[in-house]
């Protein structure tokens, strides 16, 4: 399994194909908050940079519990993905504006996002939901936490990680999306699935029915 350096280079992003599984080393930026996304967009509107740079970097839909340590540092007690689909109307602009090379979380993003990702050379990484023990163990250091007025999992956090994953490339930088393909496949299979249900009902129907 390949281990890729984060922030991911555009070349690495373009080398990946939907369905690949990889591990991540390096630095990632995470948040699980919708208000956080709105604040980033407000920064763009005002022509300002967000407090943690996203330029050519990653923005992953991972929620974390971070707190101050007695030594004056920060620690993340646990981390896990959240469902990305609720951020989908906001992501194309963020992907294009910052030239993100990696986004991710769980559940995927839509076609508009996949188009933006293809334009800039960006992949969507699907993390294991219910993977907090594994994801948290990959954290090496907390580099920065911004917007501390928000609840912990909404804050923008920059982390150093080692061996984070495996994660699945859900959408590649060439416009291929597992989520779109699987949804279309399920729709296409539905007539046959419903016929199968009808057959099973007929075969299993009790005599008195």
């Amino acid at each position, binding site marked *: 399994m390949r281990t890729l350096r984060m922030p991911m280079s555009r070349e690495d992003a373009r080398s990946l194909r939907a*369905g690949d*599984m990889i591990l991540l080393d390096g630095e990632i930026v995470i948040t699980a908050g919708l208000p956080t996304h709105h604040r980033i967009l407000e920064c763009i509107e005002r022509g300002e940079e967000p407090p943690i740079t996203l330029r050519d970097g990653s923005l992953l839909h991972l*929620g*974390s*519990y971070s*707190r101050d340590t007695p030594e004056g540092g920060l620690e993340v*007690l*646990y*981390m*896990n993905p*959240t*469902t990305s*689909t609720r951020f989908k109307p906001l992501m194309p602009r963020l992907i294009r504006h910052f030239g993100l090379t990696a986004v991710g979380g*769980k*559940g*995927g993003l839509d076609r508009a996002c996949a188009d933006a990702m293809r334009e800039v050379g960006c992949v969507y990484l*699907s993390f*294991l*939901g*219910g*993977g*907090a*023990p*594994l994801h*948290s*163990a990959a954290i090496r250091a907390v580099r920065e936490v911004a917007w501390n007025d928000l*609840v*912990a*999992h909404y804050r923008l956090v920059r982390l150093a990680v080692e061996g984070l994953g*495996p994660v*699945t490339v*859900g959408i590649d930088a060439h416009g291929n999306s*597992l*989520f779109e393909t*699987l*949804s279309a*496949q*399920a*729709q296409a*299979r*539905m007539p*046959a*699935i*419903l016929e*199968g*249900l*009808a057959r*099973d*009902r007929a075969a*299993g129907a*009790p005599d008195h029915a």
Partner: protein
Amino acid sequence: MPITYDAVKALAAELYSASLRRIPEDTKAALRAARARETHEGAQRVLEIMLGSALRAEQTDRFVCSDAGVPVYHVTLGTAARLDGDIKRAVRDGFADLVATITPPLLKHVTNPLTNERGYAGKDMPLITWEVEDGADWIEIACQPKALGSGRWAALETFSFPTLAQIEEYVMRVVVQAGSQHCPPVIIGVGIGGSFDVAARLASKATYRKIGSPNPEPTLAAMEERLLRAVNATGFGPMGTGGDTTALAVHCDYAAGHGYTPVAVCFNCWINRRTRARLHDDGRVEHME
């Protein structure tokens, strides 16, 4: 010896904490069986990682998911149980106590739906369903924290005198709508009939049932079996990135109704948070899982 406020409070807290750290045995067995059956290579790997995550959570006593959800309890009161103290307040205080003392701390997920502000407490929290069991000398508390991943995709539609085909087609529609988003493989609860609230409660309660324990009514057992096959034929797979395992179980239940028939469908994600225990009148605490 009556069942006390203190005993209920302690148990409510304990069940919540345990549900965050341990995946039920039947669920781990179902994941292992799914791994053995799975033909999709990526899905095999995802199922292995799931089992690894479950094991690590147990070994390190950590949360499986960072989203501890909101507290959902199902309490059954036995009519022969002797109660001493405010049982409703005990469940509420048990959760409040847990929030104050649990390690690691919980994230704030209790949300005011009118303002979207989040905290640890809120109106009508914890969400408790009450039931009565005639003659029983115990109180049973079941706990099932619900989070966005699986809670978000539940749905209900009301039909007039539907056929089984219509009911099953609706279940499949909800499954496709949830698609890759609810941390599959899921446990699916289906509630048919009764009234709006009863159908939803039946569906929710059906997700508490152990995997491998079909509904005793043959009509529903057959429905569960064929719906499970149908759901797994969709191909969404573990974490919705493709595979043969989209659901570990489909559990159906029904209540007689009027003919306008609500059909409720809900999900529990692969970690299947679920704990249950009984406080007996003689002071025993019986952990059912």
